């Protein structure tokens, strides 16, 4: 049992067996790919013929929020679950930094954040007509949130409380709309055709906020409400990862 590469499995037979089995799997999959039928049109024709009742003009948004809306509801639930899992996996995640905010980052934020919000709002709205939608917009806003948290901008208690509420608002809106449509039309998450576009926009807006906040919180690495100084000093908390004081 010789050790060949520094950080891989210790036994050589283990590595060879893993390589052989993965090669077998890959070749079977590759053969399947090679012998796939050349055209598969059924789903695309189904979606294209039902675009009129979906309320939007972008087929991906129609599939994501109307035809397979339940999957998107569960996906937003999974995001929330991941955030809750990160909360429970870390004891007290928000570590204080003694350093002051970097002035270069503050300047960059001041210039960049309005455009980030504008780009996010635009991509959310254009998701009805062209490629875009809630997830892309939420990711762009989350980039702004990440910049905020790395620039050590102080978050006061109102902001952290709002973040905690905003985490759940996407899923809540989605479920409320789904139950409302169930009471009106009889089927869970079946939009009335006249209001489908409006409902989709409402769901997407709430989901964008929720996704942006959750992705920022995933980056922060824990519950922003639980930072020690939020309780000690009352109204200011630096949310930043620890700086590498030793290398």
């Amino acid at each position, binding site marked *: 049992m010789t050790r060949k590469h520094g*950080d*891989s*499995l*210790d036994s050589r037979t*283990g*590595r060879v067996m*893993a*390589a052989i089995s*993965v*090669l077998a*799997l*890959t070749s079977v*999959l*590759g053969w399947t*790919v*090679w012998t*796939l039928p*050349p*055209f*598969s*049109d059924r*789903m*695309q024709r189904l*979606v*294209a013929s039902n675009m009129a009742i979906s309320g939007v003009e972008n*087929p*991906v948004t*129609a*599939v*994501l929020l109307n035809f*397979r809306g339940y*999957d*998107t509801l569960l*996906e937003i639930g*999974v*995001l929330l*679950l*991941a*955030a809750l*899992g*990160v909360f429970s*996996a*870390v004891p007290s995640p928000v570590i204080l930094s003694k350093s002051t905010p970097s002035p270069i980052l503050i300047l960059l934020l001041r210039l960049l954040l309005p455009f980030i919000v504008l780009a996010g709002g635009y991509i959310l709205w254009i998701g009805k007509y062209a490629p875009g939608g809630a*997830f892309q917009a939420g990711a762009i806003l989350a980039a702004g949130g990440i910049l905020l948290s790395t620039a050590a901008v102080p978050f006061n208690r109102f902001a952290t409380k709002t973040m905690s509420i905003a985490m759940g608002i996407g899923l809540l809106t989605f479920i409320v709309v789904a139950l409302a449509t169930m009471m009106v039309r009889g089927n869970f998450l079946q939009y009335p055709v006249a209001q489908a576009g409006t409902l989709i926009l409402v769901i997407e807006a709430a989901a964008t906020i929720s*996704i942006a906040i*959750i*992705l920022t919180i*995933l*980056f922060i*690495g824990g519950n922003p409400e639980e930072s020690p100084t939020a309780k000690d000093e009352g109204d200011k908390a630096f949310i930043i990862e620890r700086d590498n004081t030793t290398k």
Partner: protein
Amino acid sequence: MTISLLYALVGVVLLGIGLYSLIIYSHLVKKILALNVAGSGVFLFLVATANQTSGPVPDPVPHAMVLTGIVVAVSATALALALACRIHQVTGTARLTENEPE
């Protein structure tokens, strides 16, 4: 050999590379990297088969699936990294050892 077929094969090879690295490396962060690469391979395969329509418009259903998959993958990665940091905090190493101390 069309474009879709090429990307589908690339996706399958990425899945193989990711799986192999997941098995043989012992560092947790590298395992998470390998899982992400394998996931990207699967998504590439899905979208490549979605491209094989007879018209100019690709099939939007796998696009929606892959979009959902990307978001779920990032949330799973975030949770896995938080757990890996916690393991490092508790046991002192982020590497899975072969011989468990009794």
